């Protein structure tokens, strides 16, 4: 499939030697969304989540301590930058690195909460994210081995040999492992954590990297 028929015709391709960054309508719109939500994480105060005291009519609002807030805000911003990078980069290996960074940051965002259930969920998620680096980096290395290049623009051109389907599947598997956050929502332990602007960064970054990997897999 042609590159222009997928994410639109690229406006601009920026090259640093063999690394490259490219701006197509698709990547730019995803990038801007990551930027907007990172700005929210920078500026917004965390909400004070209202909880009902069990067995009575009393309710109270959870407070987020300043130290916890600082750390989680930092992690959320780092996560935003990592997903912005993953949206724009045109280099397979950089892409995988950014994605594993998103994985670490997502773990970091929830791990700072002082709640055993939340930390347990973060730990399990971390194990999945870490083991997902095997298919992720493996796929990048196999792409380099089978085609001799890691640049997406070169992979588009028909001159380079096609990437095997198995390798694409490995790449998708890796991204799915790193971006597990939305699926952990089903357990609700992770999202029980207060701090909306930061928790939202988890699910946003996961969705964004899913969306980008679809494009990457279709074009290479």
């Amino acid at each position, binding site marked *: 499939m042609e590159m222009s028929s997928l994410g639109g015709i690229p406006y601009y391709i920026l090259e640093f030697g063999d690394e490259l960054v490219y701006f197509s309508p698709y990547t730019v719109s995803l990038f801007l969304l990551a930027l907007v939500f990172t700005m929210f994480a920078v500026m917004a105060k965390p909400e004070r989540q209202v909880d009902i005291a069990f067995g009575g009519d009393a309710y109270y609002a959870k407070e987020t301590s300043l130290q916890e807030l600082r750390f989680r805000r930092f992690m959320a911003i780092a996560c935003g930058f990592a997903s912005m990078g993953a949206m724009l980069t045109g280099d397979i*290996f950089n892409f995988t*690195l950014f994605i*594993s*960074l998103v*994985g*670490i940051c997502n*773990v*970091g965002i929830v*791990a700072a909460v002082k709640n*055993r259930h939340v*930390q*347990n969920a*973060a*730990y399990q998620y*971390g*194990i999945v*994210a*870490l*083991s997902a*680096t*095997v*298919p*992720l*980096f*493996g796929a*990048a*290395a*196999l792409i*380099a*081995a089978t085609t001799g290049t*890691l640049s997406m623009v070169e992979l588009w051109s028909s001159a380079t040999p096609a990437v095997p389907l198995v390798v694409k599947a490995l790449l998708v598997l890796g991204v799915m492992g790193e971006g597990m956050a939305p699926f952990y929502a089903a357990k609700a332990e992770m999202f029980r954590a207060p701090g909306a602007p930061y928790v939202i960064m988890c699910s946003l970054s996961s969705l964004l990297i899913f969306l980008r990997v679809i494009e990457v897999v279709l074009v290479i």
Partner: protein
Amino acid sequence: MWQEFSIGVLLVFIAAVIAFFALVVEKDDLHRLLLLDLVEVSSLGIIALLGTDLAEALILPGLVVGIAELLALSQIYVIKEGFRDKVVQGLNIEVIQADAPLIISVLLICYGVVLSGFTGGGVAGLGVVFYFMARGHREHFELLEMASGISWATWIFAFFVFMFIPEYWMFALFLAAIGILLKVMVKLSLSATIWGDGNE
């Protein structure tokens, strides 16, 4: 050559499958953390099989990300299990209560400084790790982090010298060697003290 690469990839994948199987079967959180390292190594194996300069350039970030994730996870584990408040007073073994650790550490550090660069940093770092583990420590995380940051900046600065004023390459070389030596040493010593002793 393609033949050899295919065999190598096959072997690495078998290793990865074994490691993943172990990870799935294991139920204890700490053991899973340890097994993760095994899993991680196989991904480095696939990259290493490329056998080019590119592979070398790719392994380093891969390794760094892997180690960072591992450290973060072990930290979460420590907090999750409430090991944070446990006081750690060094290894309580009779032999290393004497001056032996000091001498060994000094020797290792001197040798490391002579070697310089990445390897030297590793050797010297080992000396520091050994000293800390033997003697207990009252470390100052901020200080160690600052030293690491400054040495990293020196390293980067040296690269700029290489790029813009190559006449001074000798100076830049020494700067880079010392920078990376300090950085690796400090990083290693940090990992020796990470199972905190509640005095931060």
